[in-house]
């Protein structure tokens, strides 16, 4: 009997969308205002969903304090008030929120207990949000 538990975290970061293999003109055309060389930023809201059986003794799928410590340590402290483009994780990848979502999923999949991570959902603004639940749900495990 499995339950999913979702907790939201926030961080603020800057980025610039610019693809090294495209020309300046192409980058401006593809990314528009997001290609501004000086960068811009967002207040990101990240939902982390863990999934598992409820422990009979605690009534919990996962202790919130433990989850908070793991997400703060591996994600929030890394990206809060940072420039995503200079993070080595984005050395070869444009820091779109699609890529950020997948990157955070990967970071958490190495930090959280095995098989507990279900999904990462990021809101870049209240109108743009992105979800990643790993590849296995599409049969590409």
């Amino acid at each position, binding site marked *: 009997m*499995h*339950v999913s*538990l*979702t907790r939201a975290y926030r961080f603020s970061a800057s980025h610039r969308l610019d693809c090294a293999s495209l020309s300046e003109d192409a980058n401006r055309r593809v990314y528009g205002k997001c290609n501004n060389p000086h960068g811009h930023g967002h207040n990101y809201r990240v939902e982390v*969903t863990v999934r598992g059986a409820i422990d009979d003794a*605690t*009534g*919990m799928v996962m*202790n919130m304090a433990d989850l908070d410590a793991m997400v703060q340590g591996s994600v929030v402290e890394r990206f809060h008030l940072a420039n995503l483009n200079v993070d080595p994780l984005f050395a070869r990848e444009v820091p779109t929120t699609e890529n950020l979502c997948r990157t955070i999923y990967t970071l958490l999949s190495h930090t959280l207990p095995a098989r507990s991570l*279900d999904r990462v959902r990021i809101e870049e603004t209240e109108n743009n949000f992105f979800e990643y639940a790993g590849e296995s749900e599409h049969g590409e495990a």
Partner: protein
Amino acid sequence: MILLTRRADFSAAHYYWNDAWSDAENQRVFGKCANRNGHGHNYTIEVTVAGEVDAQTGFVVDLKELKDVMHREVVDVYDHRHLNLEIPEFRNRVPTVENIAVSAWQRLDGRIRGARLHRIRIYETPDLFADFYGSADRDTGSAA
């Protein structure tokens, strides 16, 4: 098939405590939530049902009826109550948001006419919620 979700709110008190453990162990595991004076939340419950659209009414379920069932079985039972002290299922079960989702499912399952219960989501705060898709949901991966 259409999924339809109805939302409602209730406010309740609770604390986290396991009688089988020492005071120190309860404090270590549950932290501030182990304060026996209790604390409270404004909870939101989302009930999602799955069903076919009735050709005549255009409804999956009668929303008024769904609202009445949600209130009778869950909201009116939990609202302005102390979950540990007043709700039978939490006498021996810690009233975490996970367990509230399971209990709400058990209270509602089979009581919604014309549709199948699909998901219960309980928000303890806007930034913390639990989803339960029924006791048959044991596998990892997509829960739907």
